[in-house]
């Protein structure tokens, strides 16, 4: 039987879905890990990115963070963090994933504030708004499309990277692929392929859903103008 046939058979077995450690369990783990990592990343990156953008300093820092994280293998963080005070288990996996969520979030928050119309900023200043108020009432709303774009890039990346958590038995859908490789290609080929389909399907699904969300939160007048810059900001951060 071909590998694809084996994969279909594997996916068609209801036990593979409902067993402990089956697809549904792994999917739940995957989503919990990813959501926690993205939330943590937002908590860290957005305030810093918005503030740096507001003051106009630290552009170099943003680029540097992106470049350095690009060079650090996910595997390294996943194996190093459990040996620190974070300990084994979810916290260290979540922090490792969050590290890779930070660059797109940071870059887009920074760019989002920087690109805010200087005239709007000046007008707000002229109306007597303090620096903090300018950030909150003018720059932040104008940066929302960028924040959404960064969120999407980061979330997709985290969902993709979370598959690697299986290397340290951190759970998630990657575990299915790893188990398949553990069986050896001839016996586990179907399971490997099925796991790959699940992981890739989830990533594409998240991408599509968040693209819709991004569209919804972007006010119509901002839609056309935004595209070029946000691609550039997103392109600065790549890697699987």
């Amino acid at each position: 039987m071909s590998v694809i046939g084996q994969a279909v058979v594997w996916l068609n077995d209801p036990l593979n879905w409902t067993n402990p450690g089956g697809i549904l369990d792994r999917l739940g783990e995957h989503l919990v890990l990813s959501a926690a990592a993205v939330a943590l990343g937002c908590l860290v990156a957005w305030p810093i990115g918005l503030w740096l953008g507001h003051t106009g300093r630290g552009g170099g820092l943003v680029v540097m963070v992106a470049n350095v994280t690009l060079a650090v293998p996910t595997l390294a963080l996943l194996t190093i963090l459990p040996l620190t005070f974070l300990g084994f288990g979810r916290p260290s996996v979540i922090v490792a994933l969050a590290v890779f969520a930070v660059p797109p979030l940071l870059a887009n928050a920074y760019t989002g504030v920087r690109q805010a119309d200087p005239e709007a900023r000046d007008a707000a200043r002229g109306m007597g708004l303090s620096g903090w108020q300018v950030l909150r009432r003018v720059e932040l709303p104008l940066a929302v499309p960028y924040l959404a774009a960064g969120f999407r890039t980061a979330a997709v990346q985290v969902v993709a990277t979370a598959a690697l958590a299986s290397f340290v038995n951190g759970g998630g859908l990657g575990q299915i692929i790893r188990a398949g490789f553990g069986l050896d290609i001839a016996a586990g080929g179907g399971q490997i392929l099925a796991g790959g389909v699940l992981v890739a399907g989830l990533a594409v699904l998240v991408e599509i859903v968040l693209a819709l969300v991004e569209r919804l939160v972007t006010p119509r007048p901002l839609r056309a103008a935004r595209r070029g810059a946000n691609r550039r900001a997103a392109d600065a951060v790549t890697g699987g």
Partner: protein
Amino acid sequence: MSFRLSYRADPGNPWFSWQYVRDNSDTLLAALREHTWLTARAVLIAALIAVPLAVAAYWFRPLAGPILAITGVFYTIPSLALFAFIAPYLGIGAVTVLSVVVLYALLVIVRNAIAGLTQVPPEVREAAEGMGYGRWARLFRIDLPLALPGILTGLRLATVSTVALVTVGVVIGRGGLGQLIFAGFQNNFYKAQIMTGTLLCVLLALVLDLALAGVGRLLTPWLARRSS
């Protein structure tokens, strides 16, 4: 000599140890060589496919949309899933790792090369046409040289991310330095081995990035002159 050995304190499990590096220099060098070799081949193959693709997209604009869209979709697919798609067919070997990393590097280079090519000023293009340059002559003498900064940016990004990506190859036992990191984790959480593997990865990425930046400066002397 022997009394010194007996007095050596309990080695514990330090994050870094020269002792480890010295004792395992052969293994380290072999892993480093495999990693470098995989990265170099991957980026080279990717560039050889990506640049012609970018030129095709540049010449035939209708192709640009589909090429960018397909590369975008591929980029969304997680690396582990790509391994899962390819390994059942190509087996467990360097070819599988190579295919996966080539695919990712390809996308980065294509995007940057297209960006670089489309940034060639239209006046320059028209001037070249007016001077009687044919399509190919214009490509090699005008378009590609002017797009070189973009292409090189793509190459550098691709190289750095490939170095990191090769480590995912541990899933089929061919991860280069990743193999070291992973084995360190499995063998009683040997911190020195994990850290050495990681540092070598980051250093390799840095060195290759700087080397490419240097090549870029040599190939585009006019940019350095302009900025000084």
